[in-house]
């Protein structure tokens, strides 16, 4: 028997023990696999840690409650046309579980359906988060979820609302969603609305993103993206953005493309974002913050 055969035989005979902790992490991950979501966002969970007691019922304050009436009375004025308030809160803290959700609602003066459309979408999103939570706490887990909102932009031209969700289950996962309204028309806008119909913004943005990813990897060994040609290790490459990829305008008026964890890089890279600088892109821009 040659060495190769001996080694194979030995490998077959040996039963390398898998540590209990490793098996537990695998099992927990498998038993909490999130339902796959369609773009633009994927809800991923990090699992692991300590088993937790099943928590008691959570509660939701309906819009009609006395507490809500108080909230309504103290509306923070965030702009001349758009106001945002927390219309639902969902709080729960027991044992190792902590959940705090502040669900916003945009109120709009003047014409346009942007606020209504976004409110409906946000409501569905929050409902899903709550359903995910309730499903999760029925099994063992260690769950911390905070959902907050923030007005990113509110000018005479543009309104952007961001929903932040931070989920911690042994490790952490941060997720953002952005909702935009063109203030003069009051209509909801997405990335595809920013450019003329015949302009290939997808290619321009995608190419810039790939260039930036390469530059980051060259500059820092710790940076790693799923990018064809730049790494020997990738098998799933970022090729192009979704037509309605999430975005926002930063305070300088530049377009920022945020990605969720796992979208363009391994989970250990977190949620990377890129500020676009291609001049041509800004020349084509039909809306400005």
């Amino acid at each position, binding site marked *: 028997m040659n*060495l190769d055969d001996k080694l194979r035989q*030995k490998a077959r005979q*040996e039963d*390398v023990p*898998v540590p209990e902790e*490793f098996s537990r992490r*695998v099992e927990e991950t498998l038993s909490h*696999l999130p339902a796959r979501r369609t773009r633009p966002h994927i809800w991923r969970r990090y699992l692991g840690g300590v088993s937790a007691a099943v928590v008691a019922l959570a509660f939701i304050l309906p819009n009609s409650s006395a507490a809500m009436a108080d909230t309504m009375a103290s509306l923070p004025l965030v702009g001349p046309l758009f106001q945002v308030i927390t219309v639902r809160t969902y709080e729960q803290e027991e044992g190792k579980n902590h959940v705090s959700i502040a669900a916003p609602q945009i109120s709009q003066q003047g014409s346009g359906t942007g606020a209504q459309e976004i409110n409906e979408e946000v409501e569905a999103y929050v409902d899903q988060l709550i359903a995910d939570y309730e499903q999760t706490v029925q099994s063992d887990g260690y769950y911390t979820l905070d959902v907050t909102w923030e007005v990113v932009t509110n000018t005479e031209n543009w309104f952007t609302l961001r929903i932040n969700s931070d989920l911690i289950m042994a490790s952490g996962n941060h997720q953002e969603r952005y909702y935009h309204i063109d203030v003069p028309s009051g209509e909801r806008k997405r990335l595809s609305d920013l450019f003329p119909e015949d302009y290939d913004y997808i290619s321009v943005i995608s190419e810039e993103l790939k260039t930036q990813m390469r530059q980051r990897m060259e500059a820092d060994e710790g940076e790693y993206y799923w990018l064809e040609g730049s790494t020997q290790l990738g098998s*799933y490459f970022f090729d192009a953005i979704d037509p309605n990829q999430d975005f926002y305008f930063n305070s300088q008026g530049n377009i920022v493309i945020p990605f969720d964890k796992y979208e363009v890089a*391994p989970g250990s890279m977190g949620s990377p974002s890129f500020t676009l600088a291609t001049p041509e892109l800004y020349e084509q821009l039909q809306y400005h913050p």
Partner: protein
Amino acid sequence: MEELQWFTDQVQEQEKAMYRLAMGILGNSEDAADAAQEAILTAYQKLPTLRRKESFRPWLMRILTNECYAILRRRKKVVSLDEISHLPAVSGGEENLQLWQAVCGLNQQLRAVVVLYYYDGFSGKEIGTILGITEANVKTRLSRARKHLRILLEGST
């Protein structure tokens, strides 16, 4: 639901192989568990892109490799032969783990190839795909590993 069950079964079948590979690359079980967790979540998300279900095993191993290397890079770990040449001793069933202990004595580059070749039965071409190296490179590493293993196992085979 059927797909979820299928995925769960497949991953469970590969648990030991995942542990060996992640340990082979990362060198400690805590990091290995992190990588496995990331890999499972990524694989499930990417499952619709897997055209041939029979390719699941090498596909999962490649995702796991990606996650392992990302963890290495992210944590700025410099994997050198010196640092990784002495992995913690394996506990439990020591008498029939001569090969595993010998593998743990190899450097990181050789460990991953040996694990995939001798324990998991992947071909040189498949290992190249999983690790993102050429088949020729796989053969070179295997050749080097054999020399080390022959010495390390001398007297125990």
